[in-house]
């Protein structure tokens, strides 16, 4: 435990800036002119120096800031506080550089009236009061409930001002209000102290109560958007950067909201950010995006931390195609040198498992390794893409995401849905066409596969979430109840989308199946107000004539159209994640402006290729497989060992549950017999995801209860290790009388041939000295059958078998 604390503390200390002593020649201050007005009476500044070699260096917290007239404006470091109306200036000095910036303080004596929604709600968000873990959760906290992130300001106003007979506020002595006593910790508060006495926040709240706790002027200008500065910045390790956030109001007024905005980093070890928008980079090169939220308006600051002292090994890095050019361009920017090309055997095993969920046989390995044709990888990729296992594996992947859960849609439903998906893949039908058909599906559930998608989902709200998630990569769950905290979507968007599904009927038929159809368009209501919402697709104005037919047809057209900014991007990102181990956007199905791709030009390129190919999944798979990027070794060099974002090496990963079970069956030569399935059925071919299988459950098959990829787990557990080592089922495969070991021994192979055959089958490569030594020891001092089984057992438990490298 002590070590843990130490570790955490050590990480924090390491974030201190060490920018001193770098030669600089120019100083920039933002904002260039400062007007402190409104209620918050503070202004964050950013001070940027330009180094002699042309880099930008944030010296906001390293420079000295002096006010010419402390009576008008005082400086607490780089944060200026208004003290009285008037004009003055501040002098900023760093090293030998100096800059003077004019400052004007206005509205100090006559502050504008406080508006609850505009001024108080952001404060409740910043202090965490209306967080979903506290008073913002559905049941509130200890009888005090706020709407999460303040999405329902009227209700919050009632909760504070009117509920509980108004005892939360004490108008006569604002400081004694229960709200403030709790928030400052003067009265015991489960959430601890959230507001410091006499801070700006404290004064704003007491000021509001003193004004009589008004709702505010209905005409008061509201926030239209926020501006974030800087948008992008290249930093060093252990560097820092102050972020400046400005809210723009309907009347054009600008107000500094840096200390009122909420910040979150998508990669905290790369860059952390504190509550005041001060970002600190860590010990690792990489990239991070800081999402900034102020009252539902979002912005993002992207930082990039290249490797500092990288060798200039850039000439002559080979590229196979455009993917490689774009990856290498990024690697150059980051100072990362990619790994070497993988060897043939490693490539082949990787290709088989990733593309068709199958290990190559020993003959296939031998043939490929011995082949001398220079374009043999390209040829092999073509061969693999034509194999029927491609459709098996990819229909499994789609069935997981599209909720083909037998428990929910029944045996017949799961069977026909799976069959339908498989046909779409096997016939190389364009992705946009079959998705379009699925979204608008109408028909009998026991005959027509895709309607079962609508049987897996109960309510229009569930369909809204599933379709947004599965085909657009937009996680709309949040927006069902409140504005999405990190995206642009609100309840109007959610229920606008839900309107497409209101008329969906599932009529029970006598044979236990259902007829799924849409009985006509009906708008959704906003749960908060009961207002009808115009039915519309996300970020899209409206559709004409939704009444004339099944409105899903128009939605399906929109989802799958070339103009849709998410449809192609999501699919190529899924494919990229599948083959490269990490999405260009991560999580792969969470596309939003505040979650940028680590290589946007590459994502853009792939999406464009997908559209141009006529939404041909295989063409993108082919492009990826032929890239040198995909074929790189997983062995890292000094510069790319820490790279998790830029695809400078292959990411090692364990075989997925179904693939692993099939691989064990294949290597032992002892097929798995699934109840009710024809003999020889492989687990990637199963249409029934609920067939009892301890193995598949333990290794994490998808429960198919959520369209989110996050539902599937590949985390290791102790049960997995115990099962691989001790399970009688696996032992029975190893020692199967008709299995591989028994068979090979009957063919009178020499010991070396036996070892070679087992290694080729299990590991996809010839034995190395370690396997040879182990085999030598095992096979020399005991009966051959047992020894060969023990050797195979060791191979099956080895990381070279379990992992794709």
């Amino acid at each position, binding site marked *: *435990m*002590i*070590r*843990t*604390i130490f*570790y*955490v503390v050590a990480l924090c200390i390491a974030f201190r800036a060490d920018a001193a002593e770098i030669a600089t020649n120019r100083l920039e201050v933002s904002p260039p002119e400062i007007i402190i007005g409104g209620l918050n009476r503070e202004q964050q500044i950013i001070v940027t120096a330009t180094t002699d070699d042309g880099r930008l260096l944030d010296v906001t917290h390293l420079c000295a800031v002096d006010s010419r007239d402390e009576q008008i404006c005082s400086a607490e470091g780089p944060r200026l506080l208004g003290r009285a109306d008037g004009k003055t200036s501040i002098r900023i000095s760093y090293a030998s550089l100096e800059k003077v910036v004019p400052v004007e303080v206005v509205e100090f004596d006559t502050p504008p009236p406080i508006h609850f929604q505009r001024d108080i709600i952001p404060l409740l968000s910043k202090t965490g009061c209306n967080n*979903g*873990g506290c008073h913002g*959760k559905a049941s509130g*906290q200890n009888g005090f409930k706020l709407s999460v992130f303040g999405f329902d300001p009227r209700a919050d106003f009632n909760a504070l001002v009117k509920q509980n007979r108004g005892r939360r506020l004490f108008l006569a002595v604002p400081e004694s209000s229960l709200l403030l006593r709790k928030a400052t910790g003067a009265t015991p508060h489960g959430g601890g102290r959230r507001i410091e006495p006499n801070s700006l926040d404290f004064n704003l709240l007491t000021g509001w109560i003193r004004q009589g706790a008004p709702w505010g002027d209905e005409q008061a200008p509201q926030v239209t958007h926020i501006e974030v500065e800087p948008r992008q910045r290249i930093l060093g390790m252990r560097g820092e950067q102050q972020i400046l956030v400005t809210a723009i109001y309907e009347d054009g007024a600008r107000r500094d909201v840096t200390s009122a905005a909420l910040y979150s980093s*998508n*990669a905290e*070890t*790369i860059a952390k950010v504190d509550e005041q928008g001060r970002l600190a980079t*860590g010990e*690792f090169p990489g990239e991070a995006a800081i999402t900034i939220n102020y009252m539902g308006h979002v912005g993002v600051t992207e930082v990039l931390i290249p490797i500092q002292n990288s060798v200039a090994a850039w000439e002559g890095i080979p590229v196979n195609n455009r993917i490689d050019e774009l990856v290498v361009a990024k690697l150059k920017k980051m100072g990362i040198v990619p790994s070497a090309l993988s060897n043939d055997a490693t490539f082949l095993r990787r290709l088989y498992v990733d593309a068709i969920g199958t290990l190559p046989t020993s003959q296939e390995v031998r043939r490929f390794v011995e082949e001398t044709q220079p374009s043999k990888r390209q040829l092999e990729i073509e061969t693999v893409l034509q194999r029927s296992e491609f459709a098996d594996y990819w229909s499994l992947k789609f069935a997981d995401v599209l909720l083909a859960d037998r*428990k*929910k849609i029944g045996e017949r439903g799961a069977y026909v849905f799976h069959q339908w998906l498989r046909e779409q893949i096997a016939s190389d039908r364009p992705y946009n066409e079959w998705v379009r058909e699925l979204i608008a599906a109408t028909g009998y559930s026991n005959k027509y596969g895709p309607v079962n998608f609508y049987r897996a989902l*109960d309510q229009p709200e569930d369909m809204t979430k599933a379709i947004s998630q599965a085909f657009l990569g937009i996680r709309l*769950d*949040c927006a069902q109840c409140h504005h999405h*905290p990190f995206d642009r979507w609100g309840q109007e968007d959610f229920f606008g989308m839900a309107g497409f599904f209101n008329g969906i009927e599932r009529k029970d038929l006598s044979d236990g199946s259902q007829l799924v159809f849409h009985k006509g368009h009906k708008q959704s209501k906003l749960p908060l107000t009961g207002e009808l919402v115009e039915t519309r697709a996300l970020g899209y104005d409206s559709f004409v004539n939704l009444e004339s037919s099944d409105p899903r047809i128009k939605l399906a057209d929109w989802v799958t159209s070339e103009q849709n900014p998410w449809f192609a991007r999501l699919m190529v990102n899924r494919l990229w994640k599948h083959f490269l181990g990490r999405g260009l956007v991560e*999580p792969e199905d969470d596309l939003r402006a505040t979650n940028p791709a680590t290589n946007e030009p590459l994502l853009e390129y792939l999406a464009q290729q997908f559209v141009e190919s006529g939404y041909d999944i295989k063409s993108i798979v082919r492009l990826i497989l032929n890239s040198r990027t995909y074929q790189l070794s*997983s062995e*890292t060099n000094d510069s790319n*060992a*820490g790279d*998790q974002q830029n695809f400078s090496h292959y990411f*090692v990963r*364990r075989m997925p549950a179904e693939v692993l079970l099939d691989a064990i069956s294949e290597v032992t030569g002892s097929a798995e017999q699934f109840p009710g399935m024809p003999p020889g059925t492989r687990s990637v071919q199963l249409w029934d995801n*609920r067939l009892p299988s301890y193995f598949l*459950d333990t290794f*994490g098959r998808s429960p198919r*209860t959520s369209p*989110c990829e996050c539902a599937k*787990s590949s*985390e*290791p*557990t*102790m*049960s997995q*290790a*115990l*099962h691989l*080592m*001790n399970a009688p089922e696996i*032992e029975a495969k190893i*020692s199967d009388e008709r299995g591989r070991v028994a068979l090979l021994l009957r063919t009178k192979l020499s010991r070396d041939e036996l070892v070679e055959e087992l290694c080729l089958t299990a590991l996809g490569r010839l034995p190395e*000295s*370690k396997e040879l*030594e*182990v085999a030598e020891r095992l096979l020399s001092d005991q009966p051959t059958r047992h020894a060969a089984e*023990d050797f195979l*057992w*060791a191979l099956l438990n*080895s*990381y*070279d078998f*379990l992992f794709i490298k």
Partner: protein
Amino acid sequence: MRSKNARGIARRDFLRVGTVGGLSLAEVMRLRESCAAESGNTDDINCIFIFIIGGMPHQDMWDLKPEAPPEIRGDFMPISTPVPGVQISDVLPQIAQVTDKLAILRSLTHSKSVHQDGYHTMMTGKEPNASLDRNNKNNNQHPSLGSLVARLGNQGALPPYISLPNFIDSGGPSFLGPSYGPFVIDADPAAPEFEVRDITLPVGVDAERSLRRQAALQQINQLERQVDSQIQALDSFYQKAYSVMTSRRAKEAFNINVESARTRESYGMTSIGQCCLLGRRLVEAGCRFVSIENGHWDTHRKNTKSLRELLCPAFDQAIPALLNDLSDRGMLEKTLVVVSTEFGRTPRINDLLGRDHWPNAFSIVMAGAGLTVGQTIGATDKQAAAVIDRPISPADVSATILKVLGIDYTQVLHTPLGRPVPVVDEGQPISELFV
């Protein structure tokens, strides 16, 4: 939500670190292990959580109402116990003798009267909302207590959360993911052929052969530079699994046959008896949370006869045997024993001589772990129908259990979609147990 508990803060910070990109899973594993090692696993309090499936009739066992009319009070009579003023049912004569080791909580209350909703409520501490799909596996809306312990607690040599003998879905991990589900023993230790999956060597592989295999595997794996974090993470589980197989103590924890006939019989050769004994063995070897699900208490018909002849005798033997055994071994102070259930049963006996579902007021029991025992907490009205004093919510029970197990129950978890979820929703530890 800030905890003042030093251990809680460190744990939470560490978990936050664990969720970000740069720290590998393997590094996280190592941190976890160092946490476990340095906090000294022997100091940890472990839990045996006995869940009575079907709904335990509170008025016939723990909270008798002899003054009520016959159709309410039923057929059982209160008997005195070593604790002055505390009486329980004459159908539990042996438990009555150890009442000084029990805290009887008589004022549990929630609003869910369907079994699956009740399991969810009492096994996770949170009432499910209407979208709970009762037919669907892995559909918890909140992680079970066992999964929370697996995710947030220190770990020992055994899997941290073990469920036996018939796992029910509400014991699942919910959004924490399958890795925090229980190690399920789906066999009854009372059965003569009882064996735990994957713990013992398969038939045909003796200890000598197993050692040979392990040596071979280690050589194949170790010669390589295992730098990848995924591999390191699995490797740490392999090491642990290997230690379970080779450490006599860990492996034998699962082997109930090494107990003497006298000990086994003292618990009763019944499912609940042998599960309790196995539960004791598992926590003794370092499992943090053993969940024992004991079925068939849904007495809609012939309530009296079922309790008297089928259900209570085994229960009445097992619980005192467990408490006495833990006490004799000096483990009672380090072991929390909970007897929980999804709800109580209706005040009025129905036409089939049974009682139906009643979540409005019911009883559960806690013991051990240094809690203040020999007391009853809360009270119901004259018909055992409504709580009239000190209502206890399922979340209060969760907060109590997690607090005892050294886990910061005020912390907030995040779902994969980023939604913050408090570990315990508004529950407070039951203060009377800590005086």
